[in-house]
């Protein structure tokens, strides 16, 4: 299963790109597994992941929430509005 994660703001700057593409052997994973994989694969983002949230199809998700093929996934971290 291939997942594309949208990045914004400082996290996009850290990664040097607006999207990360990750491949998983399983046909379904959850946000917690995605978080762990991103921490292993992207050392610059890793320190920011514990305090970040994921959104699936533009709604906040928990680590237990499953990601299905075709879902829009975004990393929502280091937010700084106002």
């Amino acid at each position: 299963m291939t997942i594309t994660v949208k990045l914004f703001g400082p996290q996009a700057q850290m990664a040097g790109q607006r999207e990360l593409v990750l491949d998983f052997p399983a046909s379904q994973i959850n946000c917690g597994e995605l978080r762990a994989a991103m921490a292993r694969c992207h050392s610059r983002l890793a320190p920011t992941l514990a305090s970040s949230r994921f959104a699936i199809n533009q709604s906040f998700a928990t680590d237990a929430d499953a990601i299905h093929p075709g879902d829009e996934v975004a990393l929502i971290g280091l937010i700084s509005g106002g």
Partner: protein
Amino acid sequence: MHEKVAITHGPLMPAVPLRSNGAGAVICFEGIVRGMEAGRPLEALDYEVYEPMTLRELIALSQDIVRRHKLLGIVVEHSEGRVRVGEISFRLQVAAKHRAEGLAAVNEFIDRLKQEVPLWKVPVFAEDMRVKATSCQTYARHSATAQEES
């Protein structure tokens, strides 16, 4: 009940004051881009949004704040895109019967905005703009020289 939530491209224009029947307190907070960030001179802030989620979360936050503090009105305006030093990037106006709930609403809204709403600001530092301008000028001189020689 007057409620408005808007995301605007670029800096915010001067406020249209919120007025509400029965309000004893109308409070306006404006967020202004400061000249320094992490000790470095700032040129601007670039605000990023994740639409339509950002607007939806702003509306949900506004509605919750109105309910929790029994507000009589609320206006929320936030910039996306570039906002330069001295310009306004955020404005919150609340109307309440009394000062206490108005001030409490403003404080809670801003605290939760910074934790819950998908909005990001990326600093544009003054020295980075000068380096970029210098690089463009150098390229222009080299291009002109190459054209003369050919």
